[in-house]
């Protein structure tokens, strides 16, 4: 579905990613984990044509997409929920959803927005308020709703669960798994809540300093004690998974 080979990219003169190769197979969840500043967000923005791709190849459905403009990628069916700036703070919530459905007809977009309000009933309350006045968690929910609305083939999710209460985070994770199982959407997600993400994920990559340090099955990464404790701050193979979900992972890169 999405195949990245030998990607070098960065911002201006600063190179962030080095010879990165990642594959997100169709109808599966690919999880990218790594310490802060590893370049996970840069990977996402390179795919979306925002960061500068220096060399390398990005294939989406076997068609090269590097150098495509962002809005064309959206048209091709890639939906992106950024880590930061993922809602239009100055627009009303309704307008935010309206914009998320920009590529559909007005009626379609309305129906979709209704569906989203079903999933995230909190948003109903704030429908006419501008998104900038929402709380961090409410904002993130709106962002997820906007990403889901687009009916994508591929979803890029950058740190979905950050800012969310554990219960909501768990709900969101379930929603992500449901998207794969019921809607057949391919998902590439970056998560700080590494443990939970790896549990629902199929494939996993560990990124450190702009390079891939581990690639393989998501379950297997959970059982790499050294990598897990060094970069993700989780005890590998521990049985009390529920307890881990409750507390967000530590962010230390040392």
């Amino acid at each position: 579905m999405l195949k990245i080979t030998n990607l070098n990219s960065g911002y201006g003169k600063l190179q962030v990613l080095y010879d990165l190769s990642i594959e997100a197979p169709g109808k599966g969840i690919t999880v990218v984990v790594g310490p802060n500043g590893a370049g996970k967000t840069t990977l996402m923005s390179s795919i979306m044509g925002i960061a500068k791709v220096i060399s390398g190849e990005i294939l989406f459905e076997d068609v090269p997409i590097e150098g495509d403009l962002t809005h064309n990628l959206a048209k091709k069916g890639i939906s992106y929920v950024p880590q930061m700036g993922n809602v239009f703070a100055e627009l009303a919530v309704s307008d935010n959803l309206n914009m998320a459905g920009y590529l559909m007809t007005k009626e379609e977009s309305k129906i979709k927005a209704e569906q989203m309000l079903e999933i995230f009933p909190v948003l109903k309350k704030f429908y006419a308020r501008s998104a900038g006045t929402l709380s961090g968690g409410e904002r993130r929910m709106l962002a997820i709703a906007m990403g889901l609305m687009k009916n994508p083939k591929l979803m890029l999710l950058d740190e979905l669960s950050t800012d969310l209460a554990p219960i909501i985070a768990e709900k969101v994770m379930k929603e992500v798994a449901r998207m794969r199982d019921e809607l057949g959407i391919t998902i590439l997600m970056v998560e700080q809540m590494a443990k939970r993400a790896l549990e629902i994920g199929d494939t996993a990559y560990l990124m450190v300093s702009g390079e891939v340090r581990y690639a393989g099955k998501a379950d297997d990464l959970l059982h790499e004690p050294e990598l897990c404790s060094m970069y993700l701050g989780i005890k590998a193979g521990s049985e009390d998974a529920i307890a881990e979900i409750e507390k967000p992972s530590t962010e230390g890169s040392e």
Partner: protein
Amino acid sequence: MTPWMASGLVYASGLALTAGSITLLFIVTRTFNFAVASMATFGFYVAYTGVALYGGLPYQYYPLVFLFGSFLGIVCYFGLNRHLLRRQAAEITLMMSTLGYDLLLLSFIQMYADYLTHSYGLFPRRVTLNTHDFELFGERAAAIILPVIAIGLLTLLHQFMTKTRFGVAMRATIENPVLAGASGINSDRVYMVSWIIAGGMATLGGAFMAMAMTGTPTMGMFTIPLMFAGAILGGLTSLYGGILGGFMIGMTEYAGVFYLSQQLGPWVLGYRMAIPLILMAATLLLFPRGLAGIPLGKIIEKRFGRKRGESA
């Protein structure tokens, strides 16, 4: 209305449109558009050509003036601005490129003025268009019509930006181009439309100003610092702020010159432009950082009932 108020209103309406044009382009494309100078002059010449060759009132040529400005805007966008935006050029480069365009336009204006003289025997280098005005309610019509047109245009723009899907998409792009792109909004089209609108506003503003001042081939070049001063005063964060800033600059200039020349004598007239510039310098000294620090834009927006988020 006293005479200074009448011509002040006319002049300030024109300045408001040009300052609004600068602000609009800046918030959408990060471009400080120098070319408003010659665009404004072109606006005057379109109106003048209409009146001089085909008769009638200047007002009836305003639609044409706006269209011509849009055309100039599109040319600048596709010929210049688009490539530089793609390249993520620095603010100064964007600004310089519009200066180059402005100089090209200026040379065309000068040649056009020569041509008018040669082929039609006109004297297009010093024109007082307001002799073609009529009286309305005992006032110069321009003092009433032009503010009304300006306010009408602003209302129309406001409706467009809040009620239509594309207008909302424009606001979305202004706020967050990345997310807008990821939502499938073609930023190219947003930039193009803003050049169309801003171009039209600039030329129309020039045609307005020529109803209060002498129209010359360098009138835009002469008043460009004031247009920028208006945009800066308005905070460069919202279109409405820009328009109000331009209006305030225009009115203070006229009011200030009127009172000061009564107090100090007519020599003040030569330094009339000092008044708005001192206003601008004061703004800069008081709010050196963002100029967004001036709550002007926000005040206006509150009036229009929009709440702002935490982003500046």
